[in-house]
């Protein structure tokens, strides 16, 4: 009898977190895009990896700021692809992610659409007054970038990092300056 209850408890313990979790899943198609991409970035850092990475950050001000920023995070996931030509990815790949970012948990705070086909969206997950997650989707004709930051994040802290560690400072020159800094 005790063994059966233990098995049931164990089963529930295994099933419930997966059932209750509202993790954003990057579609499997996305990984195949890397084969077609000129350049691709795949960052998957769960909480244990973030803790490990934090341990290797130094004590200089930039690193301390990053440490503070990631200390409460549950995960950081980035997929970024740069293609030689246009039309290498389909919008259904992006839609698969968009469909997961639904109310009441998620809300789109920014949606930019340009005639040049540059679409940027920022989604926030709010729990009370706290921001509990951030998703950035940047879909350009030759570029696709998806960022998912899981956990409590303060955009101000993220903003403080601009101008450091290769993150461009927001200036009048905008993306032009960004591309220069990238090179």
């Amino acid at each position, binding site marked *: 009898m005790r063994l059966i209850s233990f098995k049931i408890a164990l089963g529930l313990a295994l099933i419930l977190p997966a059932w209750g979790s509202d993790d954003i899943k990057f579609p499997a198609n996305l990984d195949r895009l890397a084969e077609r991409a000129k350049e691709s970035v795949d960052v998957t850092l769960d909480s244990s990896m973030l803790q490990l990475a934090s341990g290797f950050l130094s004590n200089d001000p930039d690193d301390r700021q*990053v440490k503070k920023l990631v200390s409460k995070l549950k995960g950081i996931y980035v997929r970024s692809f740069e293609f030689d030509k246009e039309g290498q990815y389909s919008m259904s790949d992006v839609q698969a992610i968009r469909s997961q970012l639904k109310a009441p948990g998620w809300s789109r705070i920014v949606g930019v659409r340009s005639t040049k086909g540059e679409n940027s969206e920022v989604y926030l997950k709010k729990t009370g007054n706290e921001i509990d997650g951030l998703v950035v989707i940047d879909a350009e004709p030759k570029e696709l*970038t998806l*960022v998912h930051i899981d956990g409590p994040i303060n955009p101000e802290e993220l903003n403080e990092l*601009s101008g450091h560690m290769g993150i461009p400072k927001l200036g009048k020159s*905008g993306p032009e300056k960004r591309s220069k800094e990238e090179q």
Partner: protein
Amino acid sequence: MNRFEDELKRALTRRQPSEDFTARVLAAARRGEPEQKDRRNDRRAWLCWAFAVLAALLLVLSGDAVYQHRTRIVKGHEAKRQLLLAMRITGKELQQVRWHVRKISTPEIVAQ
């Protein structure tokens, strides 16, 4: 009292051992020697083996600890690199979005 003294004297009187006493003792010693030697050799061999096993165990454990430590360092540096890369990309993307929003809301600032 005298009787007791007599008995004591008799008991302590020096007596010559029998003629074959030495031979008997030596024979007995010789009989026991190989057994003792075997036992001593066995103990020594066992100790050698135990020491070898212990040394091997220590070697494996310390090797594993060094390997784990190195793996952790490599993993940690890779995680740090990925974290900084992720921060850079996120920062850039957010700045870009911000710039787009700013461009839409205050076009005159961007046009300058």
